[in-house]
């Protein structure tokens, strides 16, 4: 199969999933026990107002008609009003999303760089103390929930050593740069504000390490085992016999093909990060979409919850498309396998 038809198939597949996802989220929003109209307007609202609201929200119509109205609005970016902030959910999402994306991208960077480096080191020096240290610590890394890592990091670096801040994205004494992208690091660079940049980075360190830890350990393990497998392959022995320099063999012929499994689980690791952001943002007082989501969930703010889940799903689906395209590019066998489906 050519690369372009692989791409078209993959995108079509995603559209089908997206439609299914919208139905699932709609179903979740309708299984909530109790009367949504009452919940929105409060116990003291007069009955005819509640009835008007019901008609306005099409709550008396059959379920597929309700879905039709809901999806029509959602496609136009109308996700309804948040019962908690009393603003449009889409506006809330726009204002909270950049903080989460900044955190997730930063920790994704930490995860990929350190995970692959540690895994490669571990494979290169297998069965030495380096390898053993990496392997044992990755077991702990995988088994420790992000919120537990967050609490340990807070205790050690923020409270005991007092070298890094505990809360938020920026110190109180520091003026925020004008918001252009919503990403504080980018905004600081654009404004040429060095102090804000340094402070924003300092605030990013702990939450992003907490978020990256599980995926980092996973990536290190997978990189190690796939490199160790490839190390035993005949083609490496042939290359050695041809006196190709070890550095070239290690990077070009060993590391590159060994990264295919690492890249292909990046999507899952990204999902784990989006999930864990819900807890990590709560612990570090990070004003992002995930914390907004948790607050909305605790308050049963149904419009906000559906909006947040929808956005998270769309982000995750897009990441998976990117990962599949990269893997399909790296490994033609994956493209061939798509033909079976």
């Amino acid at each position: 199969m050519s690369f372009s038809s692989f791409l078209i198939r993959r995108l079509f597949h995603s559209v089908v999933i997206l439609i299914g996802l919208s139905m699932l989220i709609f179903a979740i929003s309708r299984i909530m026990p109790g009367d949504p109209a009452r919940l929105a307007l409060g116990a003291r609202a007069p009955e005819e107002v509640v009835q008007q609201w019901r008609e306005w929200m099409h709550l008396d119509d059959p379920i597929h008609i309700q879905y039709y109205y809901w999806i029509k609005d959602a496609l136009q970016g109308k996700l309804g009003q948040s019962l908690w902030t009393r603003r449009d959910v889409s506006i809330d999402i726009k204002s909270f999303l950049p903080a989460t994306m900044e955190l997730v991208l930063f920790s994704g960077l930490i995860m990929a760089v350190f995970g692959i480096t540690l895994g490669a080191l571990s494979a290169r020096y297998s069965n030495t103390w380096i390898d053993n240290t990496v392997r044992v610590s990755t077991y702990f890394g995988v088994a420790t929930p992000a919120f537990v890592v967050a609490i340990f990091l807070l205790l050690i670096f923020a409270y005991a050593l007092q070298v890094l801040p505990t809360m938020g994205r920026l110190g109180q004494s520091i003026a925020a740069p004008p918001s252009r992208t919503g990403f504080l690091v980018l905004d600081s660079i654009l404004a040429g504000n060095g102090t804000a940049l340094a402070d924003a980075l300092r605030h990013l360190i702990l939450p992003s390490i907490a978020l990256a830890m599980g995926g980092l350990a996973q990536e290190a393990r997978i990189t190690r085992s796939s490199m160790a497998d490839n190390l035993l392959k005949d083609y490496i022995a042939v290359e050695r016999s041809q006196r190709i320099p070890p550095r070239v063999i290690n990077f070009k012929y060993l590391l590159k093909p060994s990264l295919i499994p690492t890249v292909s689980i990046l999507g899952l690791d990204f999902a784990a990060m989006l999930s864990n952001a819900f807890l990590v943002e709560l612990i570090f007082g990070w004003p992002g979409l995930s914390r907004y989501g948790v607050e909305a969930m605790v308050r049963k703010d149904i419009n906000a919850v559906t909006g947040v889940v929808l956005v998270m799903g769309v982000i995750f689906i897009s990441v998976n498309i990117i990962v599949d395209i990269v893997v399909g590019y790296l490994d033609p066998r994956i493209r061939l396998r798509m033909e079976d489906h």
Partner: protein
Amino acid sequence: MSALQDAPRLSHPRLRSAARAVRRSWYKFSRNRLSVVGLSAVCIVILLALLAPVISPYPRHAGKFVDFANANRPPSWTYLLGTDVVGRDILSRIFFGYRFSLLMGIIVLALVVPPGVILGLIAGYWKGSWIDTVIMRITDVFLAVPPLVLALAIASVLQPNLYNAMLAVSLMWWPWYCRLVYGVTSSVRNEFFVQAAEVAGASKVHILLREILPNCVSPILTKISLDMGWVILLGAALSFVGLGVQPPRPGLGTMVADGAQYMPDSWWISVFPALAIMFVVLGFNLLGDGLRDVLSVEEV
């Protein structure tokens, strides 16, 4: 070698070969020290949970109990891991917390494995038909949302309690088993033994359950042992947010969350329950990895 020779004599040849297989697997399993560590950790946790009312120093502290005179005590000989802000012994609460964690893991997997496996068998056996398409697209949809996000959303629209948390986690967990069994089934359905059963006129139920299912047992068992850890972790995360085990019952995640407000001065309130979560998750992970090696499973 001597262990093999000294083995008790079993009369029935089938029993004898089964015993030999078990011994061989145990030998393979126990050669990896980490797997043995994992198995021991899991056994310790199960024992602590089962015996919690007997071995806890203060069993009453697991429920509605306050003792403000002894609140916020650091670890000491009276309270080995200290007490929380209302004076309850952390150690006893961790023992009882393990009960809820294991209960969560067991009930979720009991709810999730049968439907996941059956759907996977059906979709894999009729691969390429509309049944396959429908089932596998539905699993794709459930796997298209980050797991905790979906579980949180479902748990939040229901009443916050342990059972709804289990329900929420179960709703998003079955697709993994469906996918796993689907993979195995679609690869063995063209094998000769399946075709032979078809030609002999065996019923579909017989083919699916007696011919194909036994091939899926090893990967399923491995996945179950790995998933116990993940489900417990997810349960802890839900209760951390307040959507799982409800106070005054001791949920490990709830305990960590409660203690987080009193850091760094009363660090022991969160740190010990956090270590307890790590211990049980690590145990199940190591056990699962060991099983994977022994059963030579690659799919999970």
